[in-house]
C-alpha cells in the first residue's frame, strides 16, 4: 500500500501564497482555522472578515466568502453579516492593533451582545503591517518604532489584557488564550479554535481565541529567537488558559 498524505494543506485554504514574513505565526493560525473549517464541514457556509493589518489579505487566503473590514471594525462587520444571515458561520481574524486599539469598542460590544461570531485574535505585541509601532499589548520596556525609549507606564501606559477584560462580559461563551510555539501548543490551539467555532454553531454566544504570536520582522529577531522571546516574555504577561467555556467537552 502506497504512502498517504496525512498532513497536507487544508482544503479551505486557497492556493495563494501567504504574504507573511518567514516564520510569522499568522500562517500557522490560518492553517489551523482552515483545518477546523474542513473538519466541521462548514466551508460552504462560512463567511470570513479579515482586518487591516498584515492579515489584510486573509480574505484571499481562505477559500470561503470573504471581505476586509475597516481597521478595527471586523466585529461590527461580522455582526452585520451574522444578523443578516444567522445560519451562516461568521468569523473574524484580527491583530492586536486592530482589535485592542482602534477596535476596542467594537470587540467589547460584539462580545457583550453575545454575537454568535468567532474571533481569532493574534496578539503579537506590535503593529506588524505598518512597521513595528507600539500596540496596546506591547510589553513594558519593549522598544518599538513609536516607543523608541521602551514602553513606560507613565508615558505609554500598561499592556492591555484583552482576554481578562472580555471575560467580564456576559455575552462571551468561549474564551481561551493559546500559543503556537510548539507542535503541542499548535494542537491545543486547534482544539481551542474548534471549540470557538462549535460555540457559534451551537448558538451559545460570542467566542474568541487569543493566540500569542511572533512578529520576527518587527521584533528584530530570527523566527526561532522570536519563539523563544515569546515563551520567555509574553507568556509571563499573558498567561495561557481558558477564561470562559460554556461549550464543555467536544465529542
Amino acid at each position, binding site marked *: 500500500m502506497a504512502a498517504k498524505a496525512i498532513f497536507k494543506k487544508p482544503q479551505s485554504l486557497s492556493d495563494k501564497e501567504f504574504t507573511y514574513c518567514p516564520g510569522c505565526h499568522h500562517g500557522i493560525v490560518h492553517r489551523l482555522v482552515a483545518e477546523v473549517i474542513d473538519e466541521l464541514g462548514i466551508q*460552504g*457556509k462560512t463567511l470570513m472578515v479579515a482586518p487591516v493589518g498584515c492579515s*489584510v489579505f486573509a480574505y484571499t487566503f481562505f477559500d470561503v466568502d470573504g*471581505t476586509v*473590514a*475597516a481597521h478595527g471594525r471586523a466585529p*461590527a462587520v461580522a*455582526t452585520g453579516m*451574522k444578523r443578516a444571515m444567522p445560519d451562516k458561520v461568521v468569523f473574524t481574524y484580527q491583530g492586536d492593533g486592530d482589535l485592542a486599539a482602534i477596535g476596542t*469598542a467594537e470587540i467589547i460590544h460584539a462580545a457583550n451582545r453575545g454575537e454568535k461570531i468567532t474571533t481569532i485574535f493574534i496578539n503579537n505585541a506590535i503593529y506588524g503591517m505598518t512597521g513595528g509601532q507600539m500596540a496596546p499589548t506591547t510589553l513594558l520596556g519593549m522598544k518599538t518604532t513609536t516607543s523608541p525609549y521602551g514602553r513606560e507606564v507613565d508615558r505609554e501606559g500598561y499592556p492591555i489584557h484583552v482576554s481578562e477584560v472580555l471575560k467580564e462580559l456576559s455575552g462571551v461563551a468561549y474564551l481561551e488564550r493559546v500559543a503556537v510555539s510548539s507542535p503541542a501548543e499548535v494542537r491545543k490551539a486547534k482544539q481551542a479554535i474548534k471549540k470557538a467555532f462549535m460555540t457559534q454553531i451551537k448558538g451559545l454566544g460570542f467566542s474568541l481565541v487569543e493566540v500569542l504570536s511572533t512578529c520576527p520582522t518587527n521584533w528584530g529577531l530570527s523566527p526561532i529567537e522570536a519563539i523563544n522571546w515569546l515563551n520567555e516574555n509574553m507568556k509571563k504577561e499573558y498567561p495561557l488558559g481558558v477564561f470562559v467555556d460554556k461549550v464543555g467537552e467536544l465529542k
Partner: protein
Amino acid sequence: MAEKVMVKGNEAMGEAAVRAGCRLYFGYPITPQSELTEYMSRRLPEVEGTFLQSESEVAAVNMIYGAASTGTRVMTSTSSPGFSLMQEGISYIAGAELPSVFINVVRGGPGLGDIQPAQSDYFQGTKGGGHGDYHLIVLAPSSVQEAVDLVQLAFDLADKYRNPVLVLADGMLGQMMEPVEFPEFRDLNTLPDHSSWAMQGCEGREPHKITSFDIDPINLEKMNLGYQKKYREIEANEVRYETEMIEDAEYLLVGYGTMARILGTVVKMARNEGIKVGLFRPITLWPFPYKELESAAEGKKALLTVEMSMGQMVEDVRLAINGKMHVDFYGRTGGVVPTPEEVLRELKKIVERSE
C-alpha cells in the same frame, strides 16, 4: 388608492423602508432622527426583521457594510455628527460597491451645534465627506410624502447600481407630521437577486470576495474607473428635479428639501405681488441637475439660491450656470429656518437691482 395617514417624517421614512423590503436596521440614536431608530426597533420585529442599536455610528456603518455584503437590504439613519463619524465606513462601502441606504436628518452645525433643522451637510453628502473618489447618490425630499417615495427609490437605486444612497433630510422633515399615502409592501421574493456577488456561503461555487482594497495602484485605478463608469451612467439616468412656474418667470429661485417648500410659498407670495418668479428644485443632489438648471435659467433676469446653510449647493448652481448670469445667494444657518417673508425681501432686492 391607499388610505392617507398622518405620520411623522422620521417614522414615515422607517415605514417606507419596511415596505421597500428592508428587514435590517443598524443605528444609533441622535436627535432629531431618533424616532426613526425607535420606530424600527418596534416595527422590524413585527415583520420578522432585525433591529440592532449599535454601540456607535462607527459601528453602525460597519454593520451596514457587513449586512450589505450579504446582499440584504439594509439601512441606517443618523444626524450630522453621527454622519461625520460614518465617513470612513461610507468610503469603504462605496469602494466595495455595497447597496445600502443612509438617512441624514441634518441639524445645525458645526460640532455639537444644535438640534434644529439645517442644510449645512450638503458638501459632506454630495462631494464626499470621506476619502477617495467616490459618490453617493443623494436624494433630497421636501415633504413627508416625498420622503416616503424617495426612501423607496433609494433602495431600488442602491440595488440597481450597487451603490450607497443617501437621503438628505433635515430636522424639520424628520419631526413634522403630514398626511402620507404609503405604497404597498414589496414582495420580498421580487427583490433583486445579488447571489452573483454577495457573501452568502460558497457552497457549490467559487468564493466571493468583497473589498475596496488593492495594493497595486494600477488595479486600484481600474476599480476606480469602474466606479466612474457607473457614476457616468447614474448621471445619465437618474437626475431628478422639479420646477414650479418657470415658463413665464423672469426670476428663478433655487432650493432643495425643506427650503424648497418654503420657497414654494415665496413664489406664491411674490406672484401675488406681481413678481414673475419660478422655482427650480433639485431632487437628486448627486447627480446634480446641471444641464436642467442651466436651461431652466436661460433667459431669466436673475437667480437666487436659498439654503439653510452659508452657501453650499450654490457652488453646484454656479457650476451649472457657468458664468452665464450672476448667481445670488441667501442663507440662514445653525438651525434657523428662513421665513417666506424674509426670502421675499431678498428676492425683491434682486428684482430692484435687475429692473
